[in-house]
């Protein structure tokens, strides 16, 4: 096969006159293999090529917590699902149209998600008796009826790859490792994807390993050529570029990357250096890695000895006038609680990014969940209000990060930014903002001149925002002492006075509540006066919106509202909720926001919950919404 050459430019899929091309409006592909098989990379490259081709894309990586679980076992299966379409899509898709299974474990782990009629491309070389037995197949599923509902393409991917890379000079092991590129080439042919971005990527990645580069390029090209020549595939498909995007320059972006960019943008916006204090933890670590590579923008990253030191250093930097940020996930959030409480008492700006994952305890490190909401809102000793906001999609992490920094600096209060594993690792196209359009603001430090005629009072307050002065060490005339002990109103001196404590507790709460006045009016998506409202927050945005579209496509009415601000809640929420007969609230927890909504507004929301470590499918939410709509008719 290797001598069959592909169109060398690769920029435009070569015409294949021998095979008819069928047009599809959208396709969902899942790449699945061992955690060492490079499935994340394969999916990422396919996504990138599709995005550049002009499709809308949404992705869902799903990988084990172990770096290299035992090869060929079910726990070691790593998968990457990509949904690409000629129109605006909101989720990585409910069920794959195509499964690429690199071994029996990948087949077995993913088969349950495949709808009837789906296509399976599998590496026949891996279907040995031993490999089948390892994952509990007593009989070869290819030989009995288990795969009868699917179109199965059995291809000797390993053998084909080895043959294709024979001339590159790599050893047998490296040769076999290139089979993900063979599969990528084949699927790229099947869906008429260009290869040039992947070629460019490989050339950069393996610039110092020419043999490995040659092997990967050979495998990629051979996979593409195989599609053209083999009789296993009689048609290929095409998904046209999406037409409904606003004009502009786009890129594909993950939530963690968007978050890192947003933090840099925020530092630039208020002309302060960004300081990240962090401790490695999945899935937040990437933000640390990414910001560590952005030092040219004045960003300092500090890998601390533990989660507490990470946030402590961020608070110390904030005290000195930097943009103090800490990032964490799962149990790391619990460890930071006491320091968040100190930041509440000190009334200093601090941004805490919680990339939520499955809990409790170590829980599901690589799986998504929204179960830290109550912890973010209340998880500290004492009355300890903080601002809590949540990102709704991967690219939205950029705007949310800027807003978190702006709110923290403006109110001198900790802000918890909730992301989650789905947003962190998932990707979508992002219209790249013009740098000149990004917000700028003045952090408004206290100055010697402002206080030259009077004694500095560190706990006096702005009459509107109730924020206290941010007086940096080094400022003459403003020396003062602050701490975790209760402080006297205005002067900030230690005070154990009962009435003063009551005043201060209420002041700190009022300061956070005052943020609600700055939240723009809610934009309820309700084109035709629906009786049912679906309310969401965070990463359920995509599945909920997709479900709402499906319901409306079926001729029914449903309204939709998505919350970014979770503390304080928007003021007009109290007006919106009673307008509807039913309020449905899907969450990837056991109903945490539902509890808040019921308590605050006395609205008996219908709480829809799942905690499988994966996002809702739009299909299941569509069903839920239809049932609720039927109940009010």
């Amino acid at each position, binding site marked *: 096969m290797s001598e069959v050459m592909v169109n060398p430019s690769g920029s435009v899929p070569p015409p294949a006159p021998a095979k008819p091309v069928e047009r599809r409006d959208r396709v969902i592909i899942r790449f699945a293999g061992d955690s060492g098989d490079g499935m994340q990379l394969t999916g990422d490259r396919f996504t990138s090529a599709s995005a550049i081709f002009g499709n809308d894309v949404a992705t869902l990586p799903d990988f084990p917590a172990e770096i290299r679980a035992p090869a060929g076992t079910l726990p070691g299966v790593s998968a990457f699902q990509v949904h690409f379409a000629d129109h605006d899509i909101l989720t990585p898709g409910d069920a794959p149209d195509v499964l690429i299974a690199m071994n029996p474990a990948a087949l077995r782990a993913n088969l349950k998600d495949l709808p009837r009629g789906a296509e399976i491309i599998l590496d026949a070389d891996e279907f040995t008796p031993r490999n089948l037995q390892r994952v509990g197949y007593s009989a070869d599923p290819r030989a009995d009826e288990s795969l009868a509902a699917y179109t199965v393409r059995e291809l000797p991917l390993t053998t084909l790859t080895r043959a294709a890379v024979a001339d590159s000079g790599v050893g047998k092991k490296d040769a076999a490792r290139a089979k993900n590129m063979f599969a990528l080439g084949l699927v790229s042919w099947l869906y008429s994807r260009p290869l040039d971005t992947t070629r460019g990527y490989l050339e950069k990645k393996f610039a110092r390993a020419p043999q490995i580069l040659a092997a990967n390029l050979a495998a990629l090209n051979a996979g593409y050529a195989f599609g053209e020549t083999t009789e296993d595939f009689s048609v290929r498909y095409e998904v046209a570029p999406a037409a409904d995007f606003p004009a502009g*320059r786009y890129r594909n972006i993950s939530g963690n990357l968007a978050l890192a960019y947003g933090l840099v943008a925020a530092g630039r916006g208020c002309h302060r250096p960004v300081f990240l204090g962090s401790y490695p933890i999945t899935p937040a670590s990437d933000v640390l890695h990414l910001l560590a590579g952005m030092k*040219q923008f004045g960003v300092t990253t500090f890998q601390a000895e533990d989660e507490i030191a990470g946030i402590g*250093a961020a608070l110390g930097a904030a005290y000195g006038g930097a943009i103090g940020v800490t990032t964490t996930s799962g149990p790391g959030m619990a460890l930071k609680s006491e320091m968040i409480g100190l930041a509440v008492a000190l009334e200093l700006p601090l941004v805490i990014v919680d990339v939520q994952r499955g809990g409790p305890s170590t829980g599901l490190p690589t799986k998504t969940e929204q179960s830290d909401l109550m912890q973010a809102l209340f998880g500290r000793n004492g009355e300890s209000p903080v601002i809590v906001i949540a990102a709704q999609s991967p690219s939205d992490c950029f705007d949310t990060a800027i807003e978190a920094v702006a709110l923290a600096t403006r109110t001198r209060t900790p802000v918890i930014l909730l992301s989650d594993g789905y947003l962190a690792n998932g990707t979508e196209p992002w*219209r790249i903002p013009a740098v000149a359009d990004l917000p700028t603001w003045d952090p408004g430090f206290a100055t010697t001149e402002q206080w030259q005629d009077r004694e500095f009072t560190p706990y006096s307050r702005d009459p509107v925002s109730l924020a206290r002065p941010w007086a940096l060490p080094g400022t003459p005339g403003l020396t003062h*002492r602050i701490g975790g002990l209760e402080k006297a109103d205005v002067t900030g001196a230690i005070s154990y006075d009962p009435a003063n404590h009551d005043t201060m507790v209420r002041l700190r709460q009022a300061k956070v509540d005052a943020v609600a006045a700055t939240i723009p009016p809610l934009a309820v998506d309700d084109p035709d006066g629906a009786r049912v409202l679906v309310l969401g927050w965070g990463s359920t945005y995509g599945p909920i919106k997709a479900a709402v579209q499906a319901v409306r496509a079926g001729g029914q009415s449903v309204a939709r509202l998505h919350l970014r601000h979770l503390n304080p809640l928007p003021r007009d929420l109290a007006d919106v909720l009673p307008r509807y007969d039913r309020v449905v609230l899907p969450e990837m927890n056991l109903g945490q926001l539902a509890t808040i909504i019921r308590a605050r507004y006395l609205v008996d929301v219908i709480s829809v919950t799942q905690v499988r470590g994966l996002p809702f499918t739009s299909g299941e939410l569509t069903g839920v919404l239809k049932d609720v709509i039927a109940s009010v008719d």
Partner: protein
Amino acid sequence: MLAAKDFKTDNEVRWCPGCGDYAILATVQSFMPALGIPRERIVFISGIGCSSRFPYYMNTYGVHSIHGRAPTLATGLSITRPDLSIWVVTGDGDGLSIGGNHLIHALRRNLNITILLFNNRIYGLTKGQYSPTSELGKVTKSTPLGTLDRPLDPIALALGANATFVARALDSDRAGLTEVLQAAAQHSGAALVEIYQNCNIFNDGAFDTLKDSTTAGESIIPLRQGEPIVFGPQGSQAVVRAADGGLRVAETAAVDPAEIVVHDAHRSDPTQAFALAHLADPHTLQHTPIGVFRSISAPCYDDLARRQVNDAVAQAGFPETGAGDDAFAALLAGRDTWVVD
């Protein structure tokens, strides 16, 4: 020129009457003018405990933080604010028990901070439980039958963490404490100063052996840079190298003067300082070295961290504010973009 009174605050000092902390506060306040640094560029950061009230009484910037975590705040501040003189005040419970992890990492990173560890060998603020430095078998409220865990020596711990400046002083020895503070303040990098401090309520007299003029001479081993280590009446005792390579105390008259160890805090090898730390009997405090154990020069984490950022900024060509708008736009765009018309 500032004076000691300039560093006093209006806050009423609320340690128990007779507490050793008063003496330390007075010494620090009178030493501060010698630093030659404006008050607003001095920051005291503390954790929780009696000693950690210290910042309230210093007319500088100050943060009274949470238990054991003062070094973490100091870390973020020292990395971002090289213009400040940063002091951490902690105690044996705050710094060695709940905050032990942060202490060792602040020391090994060699941040530009000075850590004053007030060691009274007891928990005072929580009213009398034993601490990580309490002597073995100590009967306290929480250990009515005596403690079971061997005490920690802050000096040995700091040396184990490869701290670049390690010293010990006594609360009541104003001259000695001032001398050590001076050396610590001049040190570039992290300095740990252990200050033996009497808690007259819950552990009164813990250091009397070192203070009573009849016993102090034989108990204290004064460390003087470049001098043979002798102590006791007329220098009757000396520290010599033992046959096993360690250190031991001997009668000066009985040893060859050439055998007497000459104190050198600048040795990069910490083993001699470590051996000196272990001469002290943790129960009786006999043979307790006082002074500077170690003072070596090494790169500071915060300097290096700033250099990495500054170099990156300078390479990007925008030394004032970091890379410019074009560079930021290029960052946001990444490698693979497409245009929708």
